[in-house]
């Protein structure tokens, strides 16, 4: 079996669903002959035809709104927003309709749709190409928000997202689209959307993160291990609704928590996790919960973006802080 990258796993998952479910269509800006600006849909139009995989006019509210309409009529549209920073015009359709259709109609209509978008920074892209806005979706009842951090999880979680009867915002960490290759069998086996993944077990400190930051965090855990500190690294994977059980179990064991994400700190998903754990696990906590996040500033243009993104060094420093006393 060939080893594939995260983005190839995304393509493989879409191909698998296009193959096995006639109601699935893939559409968006440049997803057709061009195969997507990151090549996520490369070859799909050739293989499945223009009626299953097609380019759309340049309009994000339209992409989300068409997906709402199509999915309410029984299709399973997978719409691509070219970069997550261009999803803002789609918010009204996602928040006011995709997330509410089932509730509004008491289940008569619902929206089994997926909106995919490359997310996050670190690729030296122009302005607006590096946003991390998962918290906004996570604050929206009725949506599921998913972000994979490995080829295998990208494949399994995207399958699950496309099959899910409710709307899913699937954010792809573009910085690690091609970072690692992994053997991923194209077996159509989905991964659950209601659990996070323990990537590394440890007893001293729990680290919760997602997307590209998983790799900085694993490196930090590695570095700490050299210093004799054993860190448990959890990939949140499904950012909303959150699987608190796994996180709380881990914190009850370690007594320490560091949350790492690249989105701005204030009202980020890290705040939600820290607040919930501080309330529920208050008696097992041995140190204040640390959040290592992007700053509450605009993501700078790329000459400075690496100073904005949490670094291994910043994560290590936070872990040490939890061990201070």
């Amino acid at each position: 079996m060939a080893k594939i990258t995260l983005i190839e796993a995304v393509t493989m998952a879409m191909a698998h669903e296009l193959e096995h479910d006639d109601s699935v269509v893939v559409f968006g800006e440049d997803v057709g002959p061009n195969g997507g600006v990151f090549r996520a849909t490369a070859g799909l139009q050739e293989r499945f035809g223009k009626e299953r995989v097609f380019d759309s006019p340049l309009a994000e509210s339209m992409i989300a709104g068409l997906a709402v309409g199509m999915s309410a009529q029984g299709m399973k549209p997978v719409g691509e927003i070219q970069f997550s920073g261009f999803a803002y015009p789609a918010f009204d359709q996602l928040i006011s309709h995709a997330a509410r259709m089932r509730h509004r109609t008491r289940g008569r209509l619902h929206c089994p749709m997926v909106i995919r978008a490359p997310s996050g920074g670190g690729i030296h892209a122009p302005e607006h190409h590096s946003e991390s806005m998962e918290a906004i979706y996570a604050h929206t009842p009725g949506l599921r928000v998913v972000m994979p951090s490995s080829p295998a999880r990208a494949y399994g979680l995207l399958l699950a997202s496309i099959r899910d009867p409710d709307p899913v915002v699937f954010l792809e960490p573009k910085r690690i689209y091609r970072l690692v290759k992994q053997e991923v069998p194209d077996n159509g086996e989905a991964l659950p959307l209601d659990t996070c993944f323990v990537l590394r077990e440890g007893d001293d400190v729990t680290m919760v993160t997602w997307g590209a930051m998983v790799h900085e965090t694993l490196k930090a855990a590695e570095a700490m291990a050299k210093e004799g500190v054993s860190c448990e690294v959890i990939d949140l994977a499904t950012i909303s609704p959150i699987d608190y059980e796994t996180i709380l179990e881990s914190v009850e064991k370690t007594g320490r928590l560091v949350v790492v994400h690249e989105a701005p700190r204030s009202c980020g998903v890290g705040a939600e996790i820290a607040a919930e754990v501080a309330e529920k696990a208050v008696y097992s906590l041995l140190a204040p919960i640390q959040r290592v996040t992007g700053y509450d500033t605009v993501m700078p243009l790329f000459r400075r973006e690496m100073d904005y993104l949490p670094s291994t060094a910043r994560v290590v420093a936070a872990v040490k802080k939890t061990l201070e006393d």
Partner: protein
Amino acid sequence: MKTVAKFEIGFEQFIDESGKAVQKLPKFAEKPAELIKMYRMMTLTRLFDTRAIALQRTGKLGTYASSLGHEAIHVGIGAAMKEEDALAPMYREYGAQFWRGVKLSEVLLYWGGDERGSDFSGPAHDFAWCVPIATQCLHGAGAAMAFKLRKEKRCAVAVVGDGGTSEGDFYEAINAAGAFQLPIVFVVSNNQWAISVPLKEQTACETLAQKAFAGGFQGVQVDGNDIVAVRDAMEKGLAKARKGDGPTLIEAMTYRLSDHTTADDATRYRGKEEVDAAEKKEPLLRLRQYLMSLGEWDDAREKALIDECKQQVADAVKEYENTPKPSLESMFDYMYAELPEALEEQRAAALAAGETESAHG
């Protein structure tokens, strides 16, 4: 400078405000029975409307959006559509929805603050009322896309107001409908006002029908108080769409005879004269006069119809008033196909808190 493109907008009317046919009527309108069927539904809708406003005034209903004056547009839409077509309404199109099987009591439930009103008896694939202006245009286009991709001979109809045509979603929908050649008819219900904003402040366009040119297809203007003109244009648009020849935009000219909703007071921003003038053109009057001129209608039949409709409305009100409020759990139980674990704790807490009307100091 050489001319590279030319466009025209036409206006259609069959029965004028005095109730006279100004040109040969289309086939469907040659049968008095069919006209009477539509007149009946327009009357029912109007009597329902009057009663709904009364319910709101007496605190038995929430904010309500009246359809007074729009009956020809709404019933005309309903009468032209097939059951399998999908309607993406705004929030006033009761006449179209009643024709399609939505119950009067369901409209009352919706404005009465109960989601169950949107789980209605009309076609299960019809969209619910849509409050965020113009967003429904994209739902209609999406439905049309689904029908086209599945090669079903079905069409979508999206209704939007004059004010709604200023929203980006309206435009993105017509551009997409043109680009994908979708089987959809857009109806712009031009009642001259968007709450307090008159059409001339909404846009510099001479007609709203011409907005279709920005989508690359044809628009037409019709007398929206003439149900024959509305239904005829709808049938042509739907036939074209069903044939695979793409979208149509119909601008139906009417006037909002009521306040915007029961929360509005139109006397603040418009004069009595223009309302009085508009009343002379209202849709029921002219159809009744036309039927009378055919000898197909008289005061006795009118009275019988009104009594019958009032009874139907009264029954609906009773059904509405006898509906207990939705369960507390229902707040949670339709958020996802299956309640996520993360929400179970909140659901339990809500149930524990119980009925809290009173718990708010």
